């Protein structure tokens, strides 16, 4: 009888082979595959750690002025706003100890932000400079929650009509849909064995690349997959990403970008990378990860190959196609910038 083979974790040995003559440095490296290759700048942020420290760098977005907005759970400055060259322009926010999800929405010409706070068990809508506009408490309207602590929102996505979708990624894995005023409409997903269910619904975005069929893409991180749903929550299909603990999907142009927190085979060992999918959901490039390979149209296990990143948590793509990578639990490092190499 032929026994099935599985990818196995092995014992990690000690550090070895340090007597090699010379090695190129981080900044000389070219990351990625195919038409998505980048040069890495780990010193993009010019912030002074003494005055503007970060803790976990969770998510980043670019506002309509072209500025890069970072969300960290460091309450000295929950939001740090940079220019694209990494110069710190301004900061705000001291009241978001569990700052996790950051989504920007252009509301009738005005930028607004949605912050998911894991510790406060709330979603907070603010102006771009931090004035609170709306607070969404735990969704008892769903009938699924009896107390706030069961609800640990990780991400929001805003539909073109202003509907707010909240992913309860560290709570009960429901996606809760509200109208633009914060009135409950619907909920779907949740934990369970069926394809429509989610396991660690860590991220969500609205995919409008096919204008006739906009849909939601939701992360099911422990399943190493994205799942697609209609805007009213009907499950469409699953996009398996074997080996990859994907964080939120980020769409820019034809491509979908996602930080991969860690490789499934090396959990808890700083084994993250960044993955990029084309509009047909085919992985075209992994930054710091294995070259994507399809066998019989099936994606092979993906994994970190070079330790550029520790635990990447989000990717922001700016108007010039540069990437910014925010990292969780990675020695309180500021975000890295990656510039495309054509």
């Amino acid at each position, binding site marked *: 009888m032929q026994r*099935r083979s599985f990818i196995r974790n092995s*014992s990690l040995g000690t550090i070895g082979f340090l007597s090699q003559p010379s090695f190129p440095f981080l900044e000389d490296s070219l990351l990625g595959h195919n038409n998505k290759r980048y040069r890495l700048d780990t010193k993009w942020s010019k912030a002074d750690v003494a005055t503007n420290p970060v803790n976990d760098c969770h998510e980043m977005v670019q506002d309509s002025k072209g500025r890069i907005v970072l969300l960290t759970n460091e309450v000295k400055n929950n939001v740090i706003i940079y220019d694209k060259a990494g110069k710190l322009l301004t900061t705000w926010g001291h009241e978001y100890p569990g700052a996790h999800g950051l989504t920007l929405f252009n509301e009738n010409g005005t930028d607004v932000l949605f912050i998911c706070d894991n510790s406060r068990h709330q979603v907070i809508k603010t102006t771009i400079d931090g004035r609170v506009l709306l607070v969404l408490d735990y969704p008892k309207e769903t009938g699924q929650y009896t107390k706030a602590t069961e609800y640990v929102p990780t991400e929001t996505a805003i539909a073109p009509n202003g509907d707010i979708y909240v992913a309860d990624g560290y709570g009960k894995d429901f996606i809760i849909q509200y109208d633009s005023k914060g009135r409950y409409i619907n909920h779907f997903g949740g934990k369970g064995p069926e394809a429509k269910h989610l396991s660690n619904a860590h991220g969500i975005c609205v995919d409008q690349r096919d204008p006739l069929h906009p849909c939601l893409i939701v992360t099911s991180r422990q399943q190493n997959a994205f799942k697609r749903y209609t805007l009213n929550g009907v499950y469409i299909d699953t996009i398996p990403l074997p080996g990859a603990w994907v964080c939120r999907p980020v769409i820019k142009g034809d491509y979908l970008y996602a930080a991969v927190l860690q490789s499934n085979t090396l959990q808890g060992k700083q084994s993250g990378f960044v993955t990029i999918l084309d509009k047909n959901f085919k992985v075209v490039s992994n930054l710091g990860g294995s070259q994507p390979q399809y066998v019989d149209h099936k994606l092979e*296990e993906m994994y970190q190959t070079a330790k550029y990143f520790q635990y990447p948590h989000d990717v922001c793509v700016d108007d010039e196609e540069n990437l910014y990578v925010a990292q969780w639990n990675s020695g309180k490092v500021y975000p890295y910038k990656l510039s495309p190499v054509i």
Partner: protein
Amino acid sequence: MRTLFNIFIALVSCQICLGQKSVQLAPALLKYSSVFFKDAAKVEMKFAQEGANIYYTLDGQLPTEKSTIYKKPIRINKNLTTLQVMTSGPSFLPSEIISTTFIKDGLPIQSEQHSAPNEKYKGNGPNTLFDNEGGLLNMKSPTWIGYQQDTIEILVELKSAKKVQSVLIDFLQDYKNWVFLPQLIRVDYLNADTKQFESFVESSFELNKSIVAPECRPIMLTAGNKMVTNQLKIKLYGIKNLPDWLPGKRRHGWIFLDEIKVY
């Protein structure tokens, strides 16, 4: 060891003075059905990084760039072969070394009875300890049987009486999850003439402070003389007093085992 440490310091200093860091490769992926095999184990290795190679050894030597380059799946048929693997490429620091020991089946086992394990780690049916499955670092894998008690007794019955010299037990060692080797392993054999269990072999273990990563620890106990028997009684004694340098305060450590072989 001291020299290696000095080289490490020198390299780190060099990086600090330049204010730059080199990039290390990650380990390769290993694919196989189990570390336990009947005739041979097939191992596939993967590392999809341009320009990089997988280097491996099977002879106990640490792999270097002079070691064998992996080209196609390998077959391992020698008992207790340790596969050691690293990746290396022209633009990177070589990876850490990963290692896995493969274990060949022993004398046929008819049945086995063991003390009641912890409810959460009951194993995978009555053949768990001789089904050639396991060797996984995940303590939640049903291939493991887990105990949180001081004394564990296991009775192994062979298919027929054979000359026996050694017993191998595969343990999990994972200090972070409070999983340790037993302090003492004692094996008795059934003497067919006296119908009594008599002392066969025993071995004791001490905690090694320098071990940090979880690993599978196949422990081979070899007796001075071969004995003809069809039954072995194995007793595992857990560590009674855990040292202060271990984090946390709990009453008992855990013992996890997934396979027993008799040779």
